[in-house]
């Protein structure tokens, strides 16, 4: 794995693409080593908000010199990021975490499932993952984002909670209403969605790789802030707590107790 670095990254462009959702391209040498499912930690300049914000990698440019981050403004730190434009500089730490195991999908029928702000990492994954992909996206309402980008790499199915677009309900309702089948699942999204996917995968006896999130401080595995319960003893602390930032964020669903 590439050495982690804290670097300055110049903003190439930034635009709002949905309510509270921003689309940011950064020029950084970290792009060279970025894999789908990994993340970077972005530092606010305002020192009253000290901790870096973990944001998943949405896309890597073809020349491997730029990273695309699509994030939601959730508080003061991300609101600061949203205020910047082309030419401004952000400090980022990366690349962090393990990413999705692309090789596990080789020759298989795959569900790529994203819910809400868990959708962005599905884009680079869809790009790099070859084979038959069904991309299932869950949104709150018709304020969709990234679905056109994703449609270039597979069959996209949309669910909205209010039923304004696609299937009414969530991503699991898409599977039911279309009678879709897969051999392996890769997913990122809210915890209730990930729990439903874990249960579904266990019933179908297929593997699901899910990306978890938790409040983080260091991002590099030292502070033990962002742990999740594991079914087996973890390698670091020899208890049942894996570090999401370092051992994850992507875990095989059966390995975690969520």
């Amino acid at each position, binding site marked *: 794995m590439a050495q982690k670095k*804290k670097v300055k990254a110049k903003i190439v462009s930034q635009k709002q693409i949905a309510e509270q959702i921003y689309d940011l391209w950064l020029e950084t040498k970290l792009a060279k080593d970025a894999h789908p499912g990994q993340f970077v930690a972005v530092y606010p300049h305002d020192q009253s908000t000290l901790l870096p914000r973990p944001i998943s990698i949405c896309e890597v440019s073809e020349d491997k010199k730029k990273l695309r981050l699509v994030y939601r403004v959730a508080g003061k730190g991300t609101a600061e990021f949203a205020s910047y434009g082309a030419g401004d500089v952000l400090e980022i730490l990366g690349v962090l975490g393990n990413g999705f195991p692309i090789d596990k999908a080789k020759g298989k029928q795959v569900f790529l499932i994203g819910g809400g702000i868990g959708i962005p990492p599905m884009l680079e994954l869809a790009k790099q993952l070859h084979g038959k992909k069904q991309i299932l996206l869950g949104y709150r309402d018709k304020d969709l984002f990234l679905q056109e980008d994703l449609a270039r790499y597979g069959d996209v199915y949309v669910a909205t909670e209010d039923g304004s677009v696609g299937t009414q309900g969530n991503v699991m309702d898409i599977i039911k209403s279309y009678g879709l089948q897969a051999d392996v699942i890769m997913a990122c999204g809210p915890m209730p969605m990930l729990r439903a996917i874990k249960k579904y995968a266990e019933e179908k006896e297929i593997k699901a790789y899910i990306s978890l999130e938790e409040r983080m401080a*260091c991002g590099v595995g030292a502070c033990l802030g962002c742990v999740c319960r594991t079914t087996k003893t973890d390698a670091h602390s020899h208890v049942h707590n894996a570090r999401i930032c370092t051992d994850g964020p992507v875990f095989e669903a059966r390995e975690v107790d969520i």
Partner: protein
Amino acid sequence: MNSQVTIAGVTFKNPVMTASGTFGSGMEYSDFVDLNKLGAVVTKGVANVPWEGNPTPRIAEVYGGMLNAIGLQNPGIDVFVERDIPFLKKYDTRIIVNVCGKTVEDYLEVVERLGDQPVDMLEINVSCPNVKEGAIAFGQKPDSLYDITSRIKKIARQPVIMKLSPNVTDIAEMALAAEAAGADALSMINTITGMKIDIHKKKFVLANKTGGMSGPAIKPVAVRMVYQAAQAVKIPIIGMGGIANAENAIEFLLAGASAVAVGAMNFVNPYTTVEVAEGIEAYMQKYGIEKVSDLIGAVEG
């Protein structure tokens, strides 16, 4: 120019250390920092057996700082001795092991196990606010601090640092109790107990409800406590609490600390420790200070 400091007979190449719990055993930060450039690595607390720690969320951000309620998750002394100490021995830096426990016997077991290990000093954590039993219970009353310190001192083979809690009425009284019981040094401050509430969910942000506050926002409290303790005792003090740069570190030295530790700011800037060490040298150069030890307690008035 001489950056060395000596604490309880142990000489450190410079006065900059890591604060326990913010740096693991150095492994995770060795990507960013040349550990050879640090005065010491102070490890994450280790107990006699593995500890699970608290439920999540364990982290909350607050204005100018953070709250944590990790609950001392650690792999226990067996794994630590096998993995973490050999890792740190590869570097030319001092090793200070932070020891935690739920009962006095837990502490004694770890201290005893470390007796024949190549570690330079022990730091006794009697001030973690995030575990229900032990830890801080020993660090908030002078009598119990005296008792645990003297019992540890009886069996410890390395010099003992008692890490003090700021969550007390009179820090000088606590410092004196530890000194009277034979502590070789003090470190302070551990985190300040805090709380954060999510007003939209009407819930505590931390699963543990309370957490320990650290970061730049607590620095003035820490400097004041180091000064008060340094006025009260003769044993050396390792000062910490919100140190972000060399200027902050020098404040602690002037207040009476013999060395300093960088904690939460490692998360903000992983290079902080080395930048602080270099910044102290630049300061010495600027003011023509020969020895860093000349700065200790040198505040006037």
